[in-house]
């Protein structure tokens, strides 16, 4: 299925329209003032800051909570049939079947989610912007070729492509001659591979219209080189839509990572990942609900915070903000 595909397609459509007016010329101070007055977005931003801090300081957080490390297997935390105990004073979120503390694993899971989300989105944006710029600016056969490539990737079922590449790269010592090792790197590669197309399409559309605008035409007639035009004139005008678009892509990549891990082709254990934890819990969630609920709630909270912030960014950058 489409992890976020409905969202992506729809949002893409929407932002193509929203930014055709050329938002970037509004001053950044104005943007910041608008954003600050958006209480929901600020709360979301606060949550994200806390999440990032928790991820960065995971060992400290776990220690402060008095929990064992994420991979400590407590043989006394399961009963004689191997059933794990639920939330207690010692284990706030209960333990998993291996006797590992679910709180500690949920905290450490934030690391994977945020790392994959941020780096994966970053690579996707980089690739997408490059392809979109080249296609939109040079047009002609380059555009045709790149757009067709985008078509091919888009007509592939995203998740299936992801599963295929992930399982292929997880064998042996990885792919791309060992650069992509199994685990987090593979997941990042997969995510970048299946998401760059949407960015490329947005950027191409923007560039197509920007390159006909007066200031670009003027620069060209003054004899500016292509590179100069792209870097100095067009790219700055893409900043605003890119900020908004990546902030909305980011939660989608987090969901995609979790989905891949849920299907067993993502980050490999013992590394704590929310998707993997949910999958592992799905066998016994009727009797061991805590193992499914907490990582799922953490995932929901993270994705929600990014979506809210993305909304806030869009509203703040869009002069026609509807608040």
């Amino acid at each position, binding site marked *: 299925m489409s992890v976020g595909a409905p969202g992506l397609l729809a949002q893409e459509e929407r932002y193509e329209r929203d930014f055709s007016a050329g938002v970037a010329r509004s001053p950044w101070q104005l943007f910041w003032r608008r954003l600050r007055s958006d209480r929901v977005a600020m709360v979301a931003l606060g949550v994200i800051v806390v999440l990032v801090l928790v991820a960065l300081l995971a060992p400290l957080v776990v220690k402060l909570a008095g929990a064992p490390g994420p991979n400590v297997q407590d*043989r006394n935390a*399961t009963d004689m*049939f191997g*059933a794990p105990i639920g939330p207690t004073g010692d284990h706030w979120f209960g333990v998993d079947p291996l006797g590992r503390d679910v709180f500690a694993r949920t905290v450490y899971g934030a690391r994977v989610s945020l790392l994959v989300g941020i780096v994966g989105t970053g690579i996707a944006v980089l690739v997408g912007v490059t392809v979109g710029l080249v296609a939109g600016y040079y047009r002609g056969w380059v555009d045709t070729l790149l757009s067709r490539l985008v078509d091919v990737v888009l007509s592939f079922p995203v998740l299936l492509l992801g599963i295929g590449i992930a399982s292929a790269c997880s064998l042996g010592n990885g792919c791309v001659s060992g650069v992509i090792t199994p685990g987090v790197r593979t997941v990042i590669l997969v995510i970048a591979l299946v998401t760059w197309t949407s960015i490329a399409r947005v950027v191409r559309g923007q560039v197509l219209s920007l390159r006909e605008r007066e200031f670009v035409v003027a620069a060209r007639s003054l004899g500016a080189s292509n590179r100069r035009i792209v870097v100095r004139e067009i790219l700055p005008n893409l900043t605003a839509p890119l900020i908004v678009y990546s902030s909305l892509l980011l939660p989608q990549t987090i969901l995609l990572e979790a989905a891949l891990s849920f299907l*067993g082709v993502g980050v*490999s254990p*013992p590394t704590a990942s929310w998707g993997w934890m949910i999958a*592992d819990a799905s066998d016994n969630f009727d009797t061991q609900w805590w193992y499914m609920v907490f990582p799922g709630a953490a995932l929901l909270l993270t994705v929600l915070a990014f979506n809210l912030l993305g909304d806030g960014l869009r509203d703040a950058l869009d002069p026609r903000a509807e608040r």
Partner: protein
Amino acid sequence: MPRPVKRALPLLALCTAVLALGACGSSNNDGGAAATVDNGSGGQRGGTLTLLTSQDIQSLDPGITYGSLDLNLLSSAVRTLYAYAPDNPTDIQPDLAASAPQVSPDGKTLTVRIRSGVKFGPPVNREVTSRDVKYAIERGFNPHVANPYASTYYGDVVGADRATGGPIAGIKTPDNQTIVFELTRPTASLLAQATVLPLSAPVPPEYAKPLDAKSPSTYGNHLVSSGPYMISADRDGDVLGNGYVPGRSLRLVRNPNWSAATDDRPAYLNEVDFRIGGSPTVSGRQVLAGDGLVLGDSPTPALVKKAYQTARDQIFFSPGAGSRYAALNTAIPPFDDANLRKAVSAALDREQMRRIRGGEIVGEIASHFLYPGVLGFEEGGGQDGTGADFLENPQGDRALAERYMRAAGYADGRYTGDETLQIVGLAGAPDSNDAQIVDQTLQDLGFKTQLKLVDVSVMYGRFCGVPRARVHVCPNLGWIRDFADPQTVLNPAFNGNFIFPENNPNWPQLNDPAINRAMARGELTVGDQARADAWGAIDRQVTATGAAIPWLWDRQPNVFSADVRCVPELWNQGHCDFAYTSLK
């Protein structure tokens, strides 16, 4: 999420010239899970049994199939020359055969008489003859069929070494009721045992030959029954889309041509339906609560607990259902060092590995490789183990582990080398959890590790069975015997002559000349006690190398609904035998 074939301990057995003996020393202190085995007599006729399974059938072709669930299915649809009664996993009984096998004095000729009056199901509808058995075995060598064990078990038949599907000179059918195997070596009694596997089930050549000409053969989708049940099919015998929808369902109905006079089995049920593809968790709950259901999968630990606590008569723990161990690669560093291997053994908490599978009720903690019910178990150390100190404490012994680490030259008791260990285990709980216990133990000892969890086929086919994959540790390996003879358990698994570039069964790649020599002698040893002594001693030798860490002797749990009178196949992990099971 991926769910590995939970039952998939590989079936693998190489045989010897001696008929296996009764189970020795099958322990009775089995955590209160003892269940008396029901032989099913006096059951009620009629009704439909429904089997729920997450895994599909691998193949319906008796010339191909080898999985546990497939054997369960085929045992009531086709008749092999000999078979095991459900309650006796050690002595073969005549099935299609009319009497006990006749072995010539020199051990090189096996003669089997076949019952008269056994008829093929539709659309063939004629009496089974010895030529149908001959063809069944010959087609096993046809590349379009490519039976996995034909050359292992039937390799000594004269002419089998060059066989590619055509007639084999060493299989003779002097009349419709007699089949004679002529062998190059004195292994006839062994061959008689091998006929319990489905390759010896009759295949009508006139019907199957056109199907076998296809690559691969499609006979499995046109399986012709010779047993009490058949897979429901259309008029041409095509089961595909009729009685069998891959990944969805399978339907066994009565074979109209089966006659109770030619069979010892009661065949109470009218029909057996397979519902394929549900999750074991959901199916397990449905089985416990529902009517007329059995679970084809291994129940999850949570379900075992529930059944054990609330529905004791709906769960059966099948003893002698195999053994599990973790292999350490002795061919490459660091585990070419025996002290390091023993350190890992000593540190491993095998009790916890069992507990995450459901605790004491699902098996005994293993301390050597011949498991309860296999000849030589007592001689190999029995319940008490071989006396190897590094396997003494089932909860693991850190102090001892550190002593072995120091003996290996790591002064502070922790490993300090910088290579990353490749560990390949099975995806899906509880196997993945067992793998993670091994992984964590290694990390605690200072090793850097990289754990991969994969499907069972990938684990064996790409990693653990392929030496050049250079996997250091395989924690989820398992063995099931086809025969109760100890050689089938130890010889392929630890004999240095069985290290192959692919499909390698000697997972730790142990190549110890003394053990190889002892095995060569053990193969030729004759007489039950002598074999038990010889192989028990080899078991101790192998255990002492620390090449593999035995951690569980399985008692396989099987669950069924309250109204199902399940007759478990003790030879096949305790699946309910459809030809004996009835509904209350």
